[in-house]
């Protein structure tokens, strides 16, 4: 734990600030990034400790908005030991540069929601693990035709609209994102209600056409769950939800963000490029990682289903349906950057700034602006994580690194 009021100066680093990589020092105090000019002229003090970053790239900590579990833990399945499971994942993610995430619960029976949504709380990051920004509830109000790996028997309609939703979930206190299919009856009012409560609504697992998508956006939906997956494919006469990337009916000043799994498997690199070129500012990298992330080949559990890992991919056991990725966030960033040949800045912002903007927390997360939380990563060439820092404290260091 760092002493309160201690002023740290991170020197010899290249930082990502205001969409550029510049040579600049980062000053941290009490877990926040502070403005050194103010300190120099107002307080007239020098740094208590200088930390040499060895010329590495200092980027904001990565934010994962969709992750079902990892390291053997499945959030939708680990009901009794939800807190322990959460801690395990939060700790394991630090090695991959993730400093904040949204544990995702897939379509599950009501009992699961009742317990898990109470046990998984929003919490700050620390040396024990990444910050929990809130739960991403993916389902059960989705379309059976696009269930993907979700169990069909748990999928529900919005019979009484918002009332049904609250009944099923129990509490919305710890929820940050809700994924639903906008073509469902009563979806519109539910979206509006959730948005008014500050919960981000995401469209996914749906057969909605572009018009239905646009109506949902008008009601307040702002995110698309894993673009291209579990939705109608792009058609030139009815672009479907994919068409939202270029829709002219999006209200002015509003940006539609879309999650995309850049593991090289769920999305073809060409599709990745199309999405990036169409709407680069809205692209958000998500892992949609399952419990098998970080584990060896074999069979594991995801939600209510059994999953098989073979050849570095995860399938629903016994079929060829992909059911989630096992790529880590830093791998996704590298894959994305290679496939689109975009700038390092764009690649990193897709995993930091854009997810923060989706949740409306960009003043504290996802940037290195003054006043933001001091959550960042030190990367070397090739965007490999050398160390992870939360609130100015080193929470992970790559042990295979050469002398620092």
């Amino acid at each position, binding site marked *: 734990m760092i002493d309160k009021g201690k002023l740290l100066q991170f020197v010899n680093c290249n930082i990502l600030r205001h969409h550029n990589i510049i040579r600049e*020092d980062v000053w941290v105090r009490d877990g926040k990034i502070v*403005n*050194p*000019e*103010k300190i*120099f*002229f107002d*307080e*007239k*003090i*020098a740094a208590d400790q200088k930390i040499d970053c060895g010329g590495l790239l200092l980027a904001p900590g990565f934010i994962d908005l969709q992750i079902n579990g990892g390291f053997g833990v499945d959030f939708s399945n680990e009901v009794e030991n939800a807190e322990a499971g959460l801690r395990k994942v939060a700790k394991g993610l630090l090695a991959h540069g993730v400093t904040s995430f949204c544990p995702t619960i897939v379509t599950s029976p009501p009992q699961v929601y009742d317990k898990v949504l109470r046990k998984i709380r929003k919490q700050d990051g620390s040396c024990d693990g990444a910050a929990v920004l809130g739960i991403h509830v993916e389902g059960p109000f989705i379309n059976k035709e696009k269930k993907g790996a979700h169990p069909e028997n748990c999928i529900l309609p919005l019979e009484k609209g918002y009332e049904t939703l609250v009944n099923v979930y129990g509490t919305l206190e710890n929820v940050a994102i809700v994924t639903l299919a906008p073509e469902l009856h009563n979806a519109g009012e539910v979206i509006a209600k959730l948005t008014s409560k500050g919960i981000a609504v995401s469209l996914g697992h749906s057969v909605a056409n572009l018009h239905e998508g646009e109506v949902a956006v008008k009601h307040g939906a702002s995110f698309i769950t894993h673009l291209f997956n579990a939705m109608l494919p792009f058609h030139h006469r009815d672009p479907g939800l994919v068409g939202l990337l270029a829709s002219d009916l999006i209200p002015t000043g509003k940006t539609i963000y879309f999650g995309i799994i850049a593991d090289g498997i769920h999305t073809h690199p060409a599709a990745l490029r199309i999405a990036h070129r169409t709407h680069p500012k809205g692209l958000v990298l998500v892992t949609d990682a399952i419990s098998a992330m970080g584990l060896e080949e074999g069979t594991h559990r995801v939600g209510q289903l059994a999953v098989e890992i073979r050849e570095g991919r995860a399938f629903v056991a016994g079929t060829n349906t992909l059911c989630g990725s096992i790529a880590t966030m830093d791998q996704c960033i590298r894959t994305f950057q290679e496939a689109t040949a975009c700038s390092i800045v764009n690649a990193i912002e897709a995993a930091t700034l854009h997810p923060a903007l989706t949740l409306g927390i960009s003043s504290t997360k996802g940037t290195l602006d003054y006043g933001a939380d001091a959550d960042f990563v030190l990367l070397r060439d090739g965007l490999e994580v050398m160390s992870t820092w939360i609130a100015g404290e080193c929470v992970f260091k790559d042990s295979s690194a050469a002398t620092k």
Partner: protein
Amino acid sequence: MRLVILESSEEVAEWAAKYVLKRINDFKPGPDRFFVLGLPTGGTPLGMYKKLIEYHKKGILSFKYVKTFNMDEYVGLPRDHPESYHYYMWNNLFKHIDIDPKNVHILDGNAKDLEKECEQFEKNILESGGVELFVGGKTLMNFIYFFKDMFKGQVVKLRLITHVIVQIFSLALYFGRSGMRISRTKTEYMSKSEEESAAIELEGEILTSIRKFKYLGSIVEREGGLDEEIQHRITCGWMNWRKLSGVLCDRKVSCEIKGKLYKTVVRPALLYSSETWPITKAQERKMEVAEMRMLRQMNGVTRKDRLTTVLKCVQP
């Protein structure tokens, strides 16, 4: 006083930085002996600051025992505004070196009582023992007067540069860009300063200091006097008179003609650009004497004849 002219602004920046480096290191500043530095802002010193940062990073220059006082700051501009001098100094110098923030002084443009802020600033300078070395940019000229007022003649070691030096320097640069050069042997200067300044050097050659020179037909004197000019005018008058003396002194030519000739040819030479002269009575008298002589000679009259009053009828 020394004027050093170099080929490019990069060379000037390096020269200036090396000079500052030398002065600070020779001074051997310590915890009881601070080196007080006066600093400018603007485009001119940027190169010098970059060099100073370089020297600091190399380990040959430390600002640990250096105090700085900046020349000025804008009033009413927020301190973190990109155009403010606080912002400028922080980003272009202070954040890259090891200076103690307590030793940095820049006027607060947002102080509630600006007079008091300036007074306190002055006090700080005096308490720190005065400025050991002041670095100024191209607009230093204006600030020389500013500082003289500010310090009301108290002991401040500032090097005074006159208008002429700055002009020569700027001109050399200006013409140099089009390939023209200033001649060292032919360039002369006249300084209007209250104290005797040392000779001005232009790349090793000492320039001639003169007391008067001719500009557009008039003579300009160092102290702004008229004697030389009046003498010159009288000489010109006589020259013109001599050209006409054949007619003017002829007994057979009428007074009228002589008068008209005089008024047309000689008078203008005598009075050329006299409209602006701050003439004294003595000088006026001198001119009258000259005119009288000319008129007497024209009419074959001597002073003994005492006909001055009559001759004055020539005047309109």
